Structures are given as structure tokens and as C-alpha cells.
């Protein structure tokens, strides 16, 4: 039997409780502010030395006395790997969401959503381990080598003898990792389409696919884009699997030119170099600077995504401004 204090003292306790809860809530705010301050102050030295050139330069020289750093290759590397991951992952995710929302027989629904959940729960380092020792070899034999042998001489993106630790492998594994995010949100968005929209299409004599094309997709378009951008946000911030698979190139060599050559992303350069970076000099500051850039990029992407998804969920009752 619960002992509930009916005569529980002064409203003083209530006030304390409320304040305590508010403090806990604002702790998050404080942390974020501190993080931003830290990123800015920690990277100040590199901005002082390189200025805006830090964003565009591609040096990566940590020799004492000749230090010079530029983040451009890594920023591009992040965009290229994330972009490629999206190109592969988004269509597959939409397909999965279609299946789960419209086509899957009852018995399949639970096991399928369990599988998607498990895919999301596997730690990144294990994706990296698997990618490194298992998947990479398949990609090498079935995709990279054939493509390189056929097109390598004529095209930049397939050039360079492939070894498997490159932009392509990292991007494909990244695609697998963002599929759970994009497909589950997409599924929710598709399920939110009112049923009478589908009925109108059926009434006209539409097939299941046509119902989807006429009634579901147009209605949920902006939400699906939002889901995809959320996936992009995760891809951009992803660290371990990419670090283990992308090959650890630095400096100008890290510019993403060929799919089958090693590259580097913002998060992977930090993971690869932070431990050994000497605290004297600018190396650490450069890495923190990259952290700042990454933070801003991830923040912007996630905010856009949330705006899109929220707008759809709010408007599913009334007219959708297409």
C-alpha cells in the first residue's frame, strides 16, 4: 500500500521540486552552450593562423615550425560519403517503408520491424569490424575490381587499384547504417496518410502501386524528404565505421576523387589523429576546428529535417500545401 503524504508539509517542497526539475532541464542548455564555447575557444588558434583558409585549404602538415592545416578535403569527404550513402540508402529505405506500410502480410510486420530495430542497435564499431573483415572483401571482388577493370582507365571515379579501404566501402556501409532511421520514419509518415485518400484511388480502379503513387506519395512527400535529411544528419555524424573503412588519407591526397581510393571525413580524421596529436602546436586546435565545422553542419541538417517532418505531422489533418 503506497504511503502518500496527504498532509505533506508546506508548498515549499513543491517549489523546490519544480526548481530542481527546471535545473535538470536547463542542464542540457548549459552543456550545449559550454560545448560551443569550448569548440570555439579550442579552435581559436587555428582560425587565427589560417583564417578562412582553414575551410578551403588542404595542407595537413604537423611538423613543428611548418604547421599548416586545412579542412577542405575532410569536409568534402564527409559530404561525398554521406551523399553516396543517401543515394544508396534512401531508395532502399523508401522501398522498405512501402513494404512495411502497405504490402507486408500481418505475420511479417513484427519480425520485420524487429530486424530494422536490431540494425539500428548494432554499435558502429561492430559495423566497422564486419565491414573491415567481411563485407569489404565481397565489395572488392564483386563491385570494386570489376568496375575498376572495366572503367578504371577512362574515368576518374573508378581509377586507382582498389584495396577495399576507400570511400566506396565506407559509403556503402554508411548506407546500411542509415536505412533503419530513414525507413522507420518514412513508414510512420506513410501510415499517417488518411485512409480515405487511398480509398478514392481504389475507387477509380487503381492498382496497389497506383494507389501509392496517386494518394500516398504526394501527400507525404515533404515528410519523406525530412526523413531522408534526418538520415543525412546521422551519416554526417557517423564516426567509427567510417574511420575503420575509409583508409585514412590526409592532406591533399584525401580529396575525394576516386571511389576506390582512401579518403577521410571530418569525424574520421578526428578519431584517427586525436590520440597522437601533440598538445603543443596547432594540431589539436585544427582537429577541434574540424569538430566545430562538423557540429555546425550536423546542426543545420538536423534542424532542416525536423522542420520538414514536423510540418507534415501537423498538417496531416488539413490541406497540405504542396
Amino acid at each position, binding site marked *: 500500500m503506497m504511503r502518500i503524504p496527504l498532509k505533506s508539509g508546506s508548498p515549499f517542497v513543491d517549489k523546490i521540486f519544480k526548481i530542481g526539475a527546471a535545473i535538470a532541464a536547463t542542464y542540457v542548455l548549459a552543456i550545449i552552450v559550454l560545448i560551443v564555447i569550448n569548440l570555439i575557444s579550442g579552435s581559436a588558434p587555428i582560425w587565427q593562423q589560417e583564417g578562412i583558409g582553414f575551410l578551403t585549404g588542404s595542407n595537413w602538415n604537423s611538423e613543428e615550425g611548418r604547421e599548416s592545416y586545412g579542412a577542405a578535403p575532410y569536409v568534402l569527404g564527409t559530404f561525398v560519403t554521406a551523399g553516396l550513402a543517401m543515394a544508396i540508402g534512401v531508395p532502399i529505405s523508401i522501398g522498405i517503408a512501402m513494404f512495411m506500410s502497405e504490402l507486408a502480410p500481418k505475420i511479417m510486420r513484427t519480425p520485420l520491424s524487429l530486424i530494422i530495430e536490431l540494425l539500428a542497435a548494432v554499435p558502429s564499431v561492430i559495423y566497422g569490424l564486419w565491414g573491415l573483415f567481411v563485407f569489404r572483401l565481397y565489395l572488392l571482388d564483386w563491385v570494386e575490381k570489376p568496375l575498376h577493370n572495366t572503367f578504371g582507365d577512362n574515368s576518374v571515379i573508378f581509377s586507382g587499384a582498389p584495396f577495399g579501404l576507400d570511400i566506396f566501402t565506407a559509403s556503402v556501409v554508411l548506407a546500411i547504417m542509415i536505412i533503419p532511421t530513414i525507413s522507420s520514419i518514412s513508414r510512420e509518415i506513410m501510415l499517417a496518410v*488518411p485512409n*480515405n*485518400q487511398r*480509398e*478514392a*484511388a*481504389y*475507387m*477509380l*480502379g*487503381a*492498382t496497389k502501386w*497506383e494507389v501509392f503513387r*496517386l*494518394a500516398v506519395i*504526394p*501527400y507525404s*512527400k515533404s515528410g519523406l524528404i525530412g526523413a531522408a535529411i534526418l538520415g543525412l544528419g546521422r551519416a554526417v555524424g557517423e564516426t567509427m565505421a567510417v574511420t575503420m573503412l575509409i583508409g585514412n588519407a590526409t592532406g591533399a591526397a584525401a580529396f575525394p576523387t576516386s571511389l576506390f581510393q582512401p579518403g577521410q571525413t571530418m569525424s574520421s580524421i578526428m578519431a584517427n589523429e586525436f590520440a597522437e596529436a601533440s598538445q603543443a602546436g596547432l594540431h589539436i586546435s585544427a582537429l577541434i576546428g574540424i569538430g566545430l565545422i562538423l557540429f555546425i553542419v550536423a546542426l543545420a541538417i538536423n534542424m532542416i529535417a525536423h522542420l520538414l517532418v514536423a510540418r507534415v505531422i501537423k498538417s496531416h489533418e488539413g*490541406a*497540405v500545401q*504542396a
Partner: protein
Amino acid sequence: METLIESPNKISTTEDVKYKLVAEDIVASYDNVVAVKNVTMKFRDKAVTALIGPSGCGKTTFLRCLNRMHELTKNAKITGRVLLDGEDLYTNNQDPIINRRKIGMVFQKPNPFPTMSIYDNVAAGLKLNGLKNKSVIDEIVEGCLKMVYLWDEVKNDLKKPGMSISGGQQQRLCIARALAIQPEVLLMDEPASALDPIATQKIEEMINELKKEYTIIIVTHNMQQATRVSDYTGFMYLGDLMEFGETKQIFENPRNEITARYVQGQFG
């Protein structure tokens, strides 16, 4: 248990009556609940037949059996025949998507496609069925919008979104969309229940005109509406067809006691 009064449908074989649509021995259920318990109804051509009855009596389920929409509900089961011009829509070896196109349906809440223009909403079913000739499409769109009394109101705004017009206009747009696929029969499931009285009146006027060329079956919970627009009425109760006959007779001189109690408003 009240005995069902034999409907006039089963009596005369000598009458030379044109039945456009005949539903025979329809038994329909979903989720293992039997909603329609064995109903036979015959619908005359170029007339309006109303289906009335209290909530849960199965009238909407029955309506959805007529154009093979019921089978889209989860765990839906159905037996029986639905004959359109003598051809059974359930066993004629044609895919449901063909059979659904032969009958148009309008739903309770207006549901135009929000991302399409007014024109595209009406033309949606045409493009689906492979109609490519733009002038024919234009002709049909104009014809259908005129039949639902929308043409004059929107003829200069055909490119505007389907949702930019009022609720009553949206519902008429949905009716035009259903008529565009050139069905012989139009099913209406409480088409005016979400609309204001003026919009309702417009739709009823429209129905009175349409029935000159179409077979219309309308489910309604509004008995006055049934008397205003329909020629024949079927009263359903708990999944059975209790009585069927000319509207005037059903409302003024019902033969079944439950019918009498319902039309007198003793339950709803």
C-alpha cells in the same frame, strides 16, 4: 424476431422492369463480425435508391460490397453476387481494378487529392485508365464539372489546388471525379453528412438531375433527405434488409414494425 416482409423485388416476374444492378445473397463480414447477413436488393435504372437504418446496421458495408471495396478492409470476407447489367462483378474473371472502375463512389468526408489541381482531380481516373487524348479529357472534365454544378464556379480556376475550394465544392469535385470514369452506377455514402445545409441542398438538387441518366444508390442517416431524393428505399437493421419498396410507401405506410418505429424516429 420480426419476420422480414418480402420485398417487392422478389414478387413480380412479369413486370418488365429494368434492374441495372442486382445484389444477391450478400453475406459480408470483417474481423469475424458479420455485418451483412444475407441481403438481396435490386436497383432500378435511372432511379435513386436510398439505404437507411440505424448506425451499425450494415448499410455502408453493403454499399461497399457493390463496387468491391469491401474486400479492401482487413480480414474482410464476402459471398454472394453483384450483377451489373447481368454480369457478376465477382466472378467475371476480371481483375477488381476493372470492376471497380465500372461503379463510381463518393465518400462521407470530401477527399480530393490535395496535391492535385481541380482539373487533375477530375482527370485522375481518366489518366489512370489510359486516356491520353487531351481534348477528350477536357471534354469529360467540363461535362462532369457541369453535371455537379461546379463548372461555372471554377472554370477559370481549374489549375487551383483541389483543396482550395469550400467543403461543399470539394464534395461536388469528388462526385465529378467519380463520374469522370463513366460509370453506370454511382454509390454515395452519406455524401452530405459533413456539409452545411446549403451545400447539402445543392447536392440533393444535383442528385435529382443526375438520376435522369444514372443509377444512384445513396446511404443516408437523414430520413428527410431520403424522402427528398430517392424513389426507392431499403431499410436495414442489424445486418438484415427489413423492408424495401417505394420511398413513399416506406415512410408513409411501412409494413414492418421495426421499419415503422425507425421512420417515426423512435430509435436512431
